[in-house]
Every structure is written in C-alpha cells, then in structure tokens.
C-alpha cells in the first residue's frame, strides 16, 4: 500500500510537469543576397519554419529577377533579354506603334507619370535620351555640349507617353524617345518582393536592394527596425537613424553614380528640364510605405532642391523626407520628428522645423 501511495504521488507530479518541453518555437533568421540590377540585393526574413523561410527568400529574389527582366534597358552578357524587356520594346517602337506590356510595366509607367505630373516634370521617365547622351547607362561617360543637350531635351517629355490601360499598351509619340526605369525599377521590385513575403505569412523581414530599404513588420522582438542614413561624403558614416516598421526608406545621392571631368563631379541625378545635374542637394531620403513611391520621389525632390523640394514633400500624404544640401545643411519634414535621430557625425548643420 505504501508503494502505491508513492506511485500516486509521483504520478501527480508527473501530471503537472512536462519539464522536458521547450518553449514554443523560436523565430529563425534566413538571409541571402544576390547580385541583381547592378547592385547587391539582400533579403532577410524571420520564420519558425525552415522550409517556409527558404521559400520566402527564393520567391523574393524571383520577384527581383522578374522586374529586372522587364525593366532592364541594357541587357548584359548577350542574354536575350529583349524578349522579356518591355522597356526595350517600348523604346524600339517610339514614334511607330503602341506596345503591349505586362501589368507590372503598366503600373510602373502609370505611377511614374502620376508623379511626373505632380512634380511638374521634375521627375520624368522619358529621360532616357539624356542619360544616354551623358553615357550613364553604357559606361562611356562624358560631358556633352549645351547644344547637344538642348537638341536631346526635345525628346524628353512625359506628356508624350500614351498609356492605354484597357489594351495594356504604352506608346512613345516621338521617334527617338526612350524610357528609363532606373529611377523606379528597384523600388517597384522591392515592393513586389515585400508583397510576396506578406502573402507567405512572413511577419518580420528586411530588404535592402542596393540601399533601397523596406522594413516589413517589426524586428522579431517587437522593436522597430533601425535604418541608418548614409553620410553623403563619408561612405563609412551614418548621419541619422530612422526607426520604422512597414515602411520603405530610399536614399539618392550624388555619390552613387558619377564621373569627374576637370575636377567637377557629374552625378546621374539630372534635372529633366535642363538636361544637366541638379546641384542644390547632395542627398535626399524618402520615407513612405510604398517602395515604388519612395524610389520615384527621390528624383523630383533632389531636382527641386531644398526649398521647393521641402514644399513638395510636405504636400504629399504619408511621405517623410530628409534633405542634405551641398552646403551641408540638413532639413527634414516634420512628420519624421519622432522616428528620426541624428548621429551628429560629419559636421552637418541640422535645421529643425519650428
């Protein structure tokens, strides 16, 4: 009988205990990077399931590949990208006929035209001929003459892009016109990749496509993602840190793609109205939910400069922006105040709004 009482006591204790079980599954980090769109694309996702994590990475990169193929104007290594590239076909048929394109391309064009209009032409995807004139796409950069610029400017006009949503076509009215998606492709691809991750049920992820950042959800521990903003004159430094979730942070600077001739730096950020570099600012950063918008908006903000850029940014809903002037003065939209912290590095003068 005493034995049984012992057994019963033991059993009672066994009931209440499952001390061998570990806490419910931990979130694991899955990360990978690939070289696409002329830059390094890094994707990090968190999932409690290994298969799901790997699948999420593969699908995200697949989106980048897909958009890259649609938007690449300069196919490399003899790949027959012309078959995929909507951009190439649109450009080849400028002044000839409308071209049927994929829904993604249509979306990109429409969104771009929307902002082109809103910004009064400070952003213009028809800037292709000017970019070619400066040699940016083909790596043969040189400073063109004013005459050449003037002549080529006649081919830059977003109003001459005719989109037929019902038939899914895009038509460039004048021969010689060409679209350049360099200012929007990465953002759009990032947005598509983020969509795919969401569909797969990923709740925490970080995408960095060549500096084009999208923070999905929060960090696994619930805190906000910390995105640093690079110092335009110091590649190793950060001038500010943004704390964000479900937001895109995209930065454009005159240090990304440029060449120097006779001591003057010529960056790839060109004002569509003059055909020449915008020089008021060194760097702009856009903070907003849509990665496509963030990518696009950097261009008009950079071109418009400090004052007009700030007004334009403030007129936009749900958009925050940081402006770093060539004079090292830094301003930012008021809606970023709570998430923005300056590091104090690099002797920039931070102008706070009243």
């Amino acid at each position, binding site marked *: 009988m*005493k*034995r049984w*009482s*012992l*057994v019963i*006591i*033991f*059993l009672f*204790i*066994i*009931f*209440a*205990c*499952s*001390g*061998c*079980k*570990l*806490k419910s*599954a931990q979130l*694991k980090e899955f990360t990978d990077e690939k070289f696409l769109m002329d830059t390094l694309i890094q994707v990090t996702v968190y999932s409690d399931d290994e298969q799901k994590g790997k699948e999420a990475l593969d699908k995200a990169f697949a989106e980048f590949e897909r958009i890259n193929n649609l938007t690449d104007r300069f196919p490399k290594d003899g790949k027959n990208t012309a078959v995929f590239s909507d951009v190439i076909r649109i450009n080849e048929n400028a002044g000839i006929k409308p071209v049927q394109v994929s829904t993604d391309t249509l979306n990109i064009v429409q969104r771009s035209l929307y902002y082109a209009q809103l910004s009064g032409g400070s952003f213009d995807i028809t800037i292709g001929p000017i970019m070619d004139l400066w040699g940016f796409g083909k790596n043969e950069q040189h400073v063109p003459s004013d005459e050449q610029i003037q002549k080529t400017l006649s081919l830059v006009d977003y109003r001459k892009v005719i989109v037929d949503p019902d038939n899914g076509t895009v038509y460039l009215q004048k021969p010689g016109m060409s679209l350049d998606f360099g200012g929007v492709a990465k953002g759009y691809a990032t947005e598509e990749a983020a969509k795919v991750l969401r569909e797969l049920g990923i709740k925490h992820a970080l995408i960095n496509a060549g500096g084009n950042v999208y923070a999905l959800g929060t960090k696994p521990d619930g805190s906000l993602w910390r995105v640093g903003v690079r110092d335009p004159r110091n590649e190793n430094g950060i001038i500010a840190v943004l704390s964000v979730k479900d937001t895109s942070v995209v930065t454009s600077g005159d240090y990304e793609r440029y060449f120097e001739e006779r001591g003057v730096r010529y960056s790839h950020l060109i004002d569509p109205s003059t055909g020449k570099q915008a020089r008021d600012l060194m760097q702009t950063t856009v903070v907003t939910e849509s990665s496509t918008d963030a990518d696009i908006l950097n261009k008009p903000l950079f071109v418009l400069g400090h004052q007009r850029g700030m007004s334009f940014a403030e007129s936009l809903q749900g958009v925050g922006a940081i402006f770093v002037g060539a004079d090292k003065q830094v301003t930012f939209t008021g809606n970023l105040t709570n998430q923005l912290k300056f590091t104090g590095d690099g002797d920039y003068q931070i102008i706070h709004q009243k």
Partner: protein
Amino acid sequence: MATVLNILERTIVIPGASPGIKLGLANIMTLLSIMMLGGKDAIIIVAVRCFLGALVGGNVISFLFSITGGLLSVLVMVIMWRYLNKYISIVNISMVGAVFHNIGQLFVASLIIHDFSVYVILPILMISAIITGYIVGIVTKQLYKSLGNRMI
C-alpha cells in the same frame, strides 16, 4: 517499479502549471527517482519523459534540447548520489544537476544555430539554475524524509 511508473506516465500527460513550476516538479521527480529507485530507473524515466514530451507537442529540436539537458543532468546527479552521497547534501546535488541541465540545453542551442552568441545569457541561466536547484533540493529532501519514513 520504474516500468509501472512509465506505463502510467504514458497514459496520462497533462499540461499543467507555469513552465517554472513544471520544470521544478520534473526535477523533484528526477531527484527522487534517483534516490528511491536507483540510477538506472531514474535515467530511463528521464529519457521516456522526454520522448513523450516530444511526441505530444514538441518537435525534433525541442526534443534535442530536453534530452541533452535532461540526460546530462541526471547522469551527473546519479554519479554524485551513488558515489558521494555521504559527503554531499541533496541540495547541492540538485543545484549541480540544474546547472548541468541548463548548460546542456545552451550547448545544443549554440550548435543548432551555429553561433556562440547564445552564451550571452549564461550568467542569468546559471544563477537561476542555482536558485531553482536549491529550492528543488530542499523540497526533495523533505519529501524524501517523509516518504522514507513511511516506506520502511
């Protein structure tokens, strides 16, 4: 005796109180098994309990965690009890067992994620092991005494 326990264990498994209490009770059980049923039986009970736990609601990884920590801990305690129980108090054995349990689990964690960075929590883990080990030891000592009197 041990087989009886195992059979009964197999038929009844209920999720109970908070994890801390669960763990504590499990360790009391383990220690009592060592003292009253002998080393071999105690080891078997630990192993079986971990298998059951994994079957019911765990996965391979949590099983690895529990079996490593559990076996390491019980083995150390068995050795201490068998050869040294005249010189070491039950409380101390319990504390050492708890410490090894946690070390075992942390080690498995570091192997699984291929990263030593888990060891940042080592101090907290050690301290909590010592505290819970102490409490478990005291409780077990009491139980042993009162049970021992009744068992003859």
